[in-house]
């Protein structure tokens, strides 16, 4: 296999980098290929390439070097670099985002429990305690403190459960003072951020209209 192969399909042009070739070789071949291409075509339009790097993760520096080569040609540019692999760190991150985590510990006045992804909370949050996560929060325990979903800015997240005794519900950057906003009683309250970026309360039965994405993910 050549170090760099040009392919075309209905989505546009792709440059496939051979994962066995050295990066130096790839750079040479790439320049050669683009040279030929520039000579052949007399296109005036911009052409964007997807660069497929297979099982090779390009470093930021290598990315820059590729950009450098493309910048030598007027009409060519990189659309994006698509590898087939991700780092372990990213993989763990993805896994965390996708799982529902169980939390049962008591969160007391002055304590903050920080988590990632969705959380099913079964414990007790006392006044002044705070549960904070990047994903959704599903509550079955007793909450007298603060719940914060979608930290720091995910306004598409929801908080579901008995919320009437909490101090505050926060989603992304929106904050609701429970005493003022008076969510409905019962354990099926859904807190969400509406189209006007206001935190609002609804019922679990309306989740399909409130947030179809989550509804489908929960298997509804």
């Amino acid at each position, binding site marked *: 296999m050549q170090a760099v192969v040009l392919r075309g399909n209905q989505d546009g042009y792709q440059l496939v980098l051979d994962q066995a070739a050295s990066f130096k070789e790839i750079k040479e071949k790439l320049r050669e290929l683009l040279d030929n291409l520039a000579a052949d075509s007399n296109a005036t339009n911009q052409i964007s390439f997807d660069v497929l790097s297979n099982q090779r993760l390009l470093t930021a520096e290598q990315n820059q070097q590729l950009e450098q080569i493309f910048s030598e040609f007027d009409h060519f540019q990189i659309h994006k670099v698509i590898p087939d692999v991700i780092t372990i760190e990213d993989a763990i991150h993805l896994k965390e985002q996708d799982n529902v985590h169980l939390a049962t510990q*008591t*969160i*007391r*006045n*002055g*304590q903050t429990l920080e988590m990632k992804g969705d959380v099913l909370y079964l414990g*007790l949050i*006392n*006044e*002044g*305690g705070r549960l904070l996560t990047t994903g959704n929060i599903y509550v079955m325990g007793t909450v007298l403190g603060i719940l914060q979903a979608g930290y720091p800015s995910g306004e598409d997240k929801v908080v579901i459960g008995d919320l009437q005794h909490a101090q505050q519900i926060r989603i992304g950057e929106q904050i609701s003072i429970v005493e003022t906003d008076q969510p409905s009683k019962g354990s099926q309250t859904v807190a969400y951020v509406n189209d006007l970026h206001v935190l609002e309360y609804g019922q679990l039965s309306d989740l399909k209209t409130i947030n179809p994405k989550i509804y489908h993910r929960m298997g509804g």
Partner: protein
Amino acid sequence: MGKSIVITSGKGGVGKTTSSANIGTALALMGKRVCLVDLDIGLRNLDVVLGLDNRIIFDIVDVVEGRAKLAQALIKDKRFDDLLYLLPAAQNTDKTALTEDQAKAIVDELKKEFDYVLIDCPAGIEQGFLNAIAGADAAIIVTTPEISAVRDADRVVGLLEKNPLKEESHLIINRIRGHMMADGEAMDVDEITHHLGVPLLGIVLDDDEVIATSNRGEPIVLESENPAGRGYRDIARRLEGETVPLMKIQQPKTSFWSKISHWFSRG
């Protein structure tokens, strides 16, 4: 080897010092050798409550800085032959005069000599609190049936859970007013215990005599008939491993007839 117990609350004014003095005295009455350590440096008053303030020559900071031996700084309470001692706090400096290691070293030293070392913790959760829990094997958390005191107690329980002591913490609910709990005006005992999730060691009723006796420098446990004194004696017995049922919160019952006779007696 004795056991060290810190008496703490977070909030000020809930009765840490009164509780320290009374539990210590009650244990001494049971024949235990007890040393009370006042760590409220700069604002000491355990000595006053015990009526020993006029006997202070050296204090804990003198011991730490080598101006006195530990034995020299200990004040013997003459009412309990050789059973109750006090290590007073310094008054002319502040909480930062002591480090956690120094506080722990002193408590460890005292544990060799005494059955119980009771550490009176200052209010707050700063250096003074850290010093007080450094040498403690267990904690007694004092609260009152007020939201503010319970909130602060919750905070302290959280801090203690993060740096666990050797033994589980216990709770004392102080200044209980029977009629307010009965009316639902104050949180009741079960509610507070459940909220904090800490096992209850005992309850102490609010009583004017507590203030009166402490002003005379005599702990309330010395009054055999007083309900608050009984509360502290029960706590001491539970610390010793006895099973003592929780005392009933009695409220003065005002019947219809007694109310009427009250009107007449006024006139």
